[in-house]
């Protein structure tokens, strides 16, 4: 990843209504494709858009509760932690998100 880890930035990436409930959108930030997921409860999670298995684009997967199923081979990835769920293993970068409750602006911290 080509991010300088000594500085973090807060990037406004979307508005809540850009993302369907249980849907996803993507945004490219400094060479990383980030997927933004909107869970059934309305909250938003951000993950690097690459499955640790064979690089599937998670933004195209199905969102079930707090996890997304990769569209390629159905690995299940926890959206909050980026942790792959049993029986598979692996982990991927999850970015913290912030939502401005008044304007609906979605930020990610990278």
């Amino acid at each position, binding site marked *: 990843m080509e991010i300088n880890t000594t*500085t*973090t*930035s*807060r*990037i*406004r*990436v*979307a508005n809540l209504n*850009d993302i*369907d*409930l*249980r*849907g996803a*959108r*993507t*945004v*490219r*930030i400094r060479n990383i*494709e980030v997927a*933004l997921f909107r869970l*059934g409860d309305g909250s938003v999670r951000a993950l690097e858009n690459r499955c640790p298995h*064979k*690089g*599937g*684009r998670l933004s*195209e*997967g*199905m*969102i*079930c*509760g707090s996890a997304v*199923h990769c*569209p*390629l081979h*159905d690995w*299940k990835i926890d959206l909050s932690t980026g942790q792959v769920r*049993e029986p598979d293993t692996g982990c991927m970068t999850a970015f913290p998100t912030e939502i401005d409750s008044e304007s609906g602006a979605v930020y990610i911290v990278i």
Partner: protein
Amino acid sequence: MNHIKKLVLVGNGMAGIRTLEHLLKIAPGVCDITVFGAEPHPNYNRIMLSSVLAGGAGLQDIVINDWSWYEENHIRLYTGDPVTEIDTDKRQVTSRSGVCVPYDLLLLATGSNAFILPLPGANKEGVIGFRDIRDCETMMETAKTHKKAAVIGGGLLGLEAARGLLNLGMDVTVIHIHEHIMDRQLDEAASLMLRRELEEQGMNFLVNKRTAAITGRRRVEGLKFADGSELEADLIVMAVGIIPDIELAVSAGIPVNRGIIVNDYMETGIPGIYAVGECAEHRGITYGLVAPLYEQGGVLAQRLAGMETPGYSGSVISTRLKVSGVDVFSAGCYKDESGTRSLRYQDEIGGVYKKIVIKEEKLIGAVLFGDTSDGAKLFSLIKNGESVLGREKELLLGLTPGQSEANGSMMLEQMPDDEIVCGCNGVSKGDIGEAVAAGCRSLGEIKACTKASASCGGCKPLVEGLLQLYAGAETGEPVKEGICGCTTLDREAIIGGIREMGLKSVKEAMNVLGWSEPEGCTKCRPALNYYLGMVWPLDYEDEKESRFTNERYHANIQKDGTYSVVPRIYGGVTSPADLKKIAAVAEKYNVPLVKFTGGQRLDLLGVKKEDLPGIWSELDMPSGHAYGKTLRTVKTCVGNTFCRFGTQDAMGMGIRLEKAFERMNAPAKVKLAVSGCPRNCAEATIKDLGVVAIDGGWGIYVGGNGGIKVRASELLCTVKTEDEVMEWTGAYLQYYREQANWGERTAHWVERVGLESIKQALANAETRQELVGRIEETLSTTTDPWREIIHDKELLKNFVQLPELNSVTE
């Protein structure tokens, strides 16, 4: 009528009510019945408290007999009103609220209480047992405000409580006095495997620990152990055992030991007074599981009804962990002792452990971990005590179907009619036979009718076996599993629920039908979406978030995240103009690869998601169904239009079929083909439905597959006209849509249900018409998804990346 006996039951729990149920069945009206229950609820399934706690069931789901049952059976019920006194001379009981009822027959079924260790501090708030609805509610309430839970006792109940608390979001530590958890049911190896598995699920264990005191002021704050160490805890669940509730019996002078002493007919030392269930002690044993209690109840009911009965002679018991997500089964004597031989199988990677214990040619015990599918069969062998000489290995390594099927069904045949199959609900082999005779044809139906396998599910394989035995080939309708890990319901039960309760959305279905995962998984969500659409073709609104990408974006996702686009080419017949259009679009969007598919279509591969809408609108050809669980293609040969052998117009027939059934959702992908003569150049006999022309007619072949396992199709029927081909195809496809499991290709479906059953179903012209009517109704609502997306901003937005707006560096 003065010979009607007054029966009073003390204890509105599982054993007592089961006895009444039995009695009402075999001798309705012989008794005038009064029931006293200390709890404020009608009779409920205590076993299921574990599932309630773990979130798999609601409290209302576990009621066995609701208020109306008592009414219908003319039973007087006093709830929340324990009996406090028995006057054995006057033959009457008195309750706490002062109700006084005379009896001719008195039935004590007071169960047991959780054993609360007499530790200093054990009376503090936050220390509970795991016994009844109130305990369950306390745990659920506490989890909302507190974090740390300790469960004392690493036995069956303790682990189920711990699993539930974990699901409620608490940190859970299980404290066990011995080295090995569930040491009363498991040997060391299985115990260790279980512990490892549970640790992975997030449970903590402190073993070899003796609790010395409970600390805190009014409410608990922690535990002190004998070795001086401590643990913080806001809630302590004691699951160290149960003690039979014999207080009432003692005060009435009824002879007791550990429990109320009964003989083989459940009679206590005082005439007219009987005891069943956990409060009773039979031949020195008190039981803590329902199976034996139900056997006792059966005997007692017969006794009360004045029937001959050989009496109760004790039970062998089996146990099974219900809610942990780990399969554990144990039965009989599972430890090695002198005079026993044992065989083990241990697979640490697969997480499977099996052990069987044999004594003098007979199976006397078994422990299964990880794969418990043979549990019920082994248990049955343990109980019937037949010789297993020469079969030991087979028993250990699994009663695999095929070679030992004969043994399995022989065993079932030889099983006596009154042998209990479902211990939890006391259902015998005979009961299941009756249910099948009365028309039950699936596990779900048997469950609904007899309650067999409705509780812990341990007997499911046996019930399935019996269903097969009784119903067998006659129905061709085999037994089904829950459709995925989120539910125990099978397809029939789900569709039945959707129809009966008028469920109209995926979410509603999951709620009402008790899904364990609130949002389901990639197996059940698309399945529900399909079933709902199938049941309510006109008013169900398809839920795109419950479809796979291919069907959400109407393009096929490829391994590198690009998509492929396949415009529809009806019957594989195109025109120079269309070809030019496709070529122009491919060039304009730099499509890296253009390929002919196996189904006579052109595939544009390597398209970026952002380009999809552009490509679609410029192609302006219908599509979006070359990648879904739907009608894909209708392949054709040239037929009599050009071919010298052709007897019929294969292309025309193919195009007609494709135009009629395009956009049809199905349980799985569906491919059709039409050949102009039996030379079969369109390879119609490895398709889901193939039409092959003969002189003066058409043969319709079904159930073919050219995939992983090639399967040649079988002849469904021969017809004369194109219209008849349309009718039979429509009827067949709709029958498949209505009957198959979601995800099941026609080839598997035909193999599962047998072609004969399909032929029979379609033989009747009226039925065919009805099926055709329903498929037409369904198709009438479909639209071309590409067109829709191109004209809808909300749908279009999902094809483009978001712009990166601004960033603040900190």
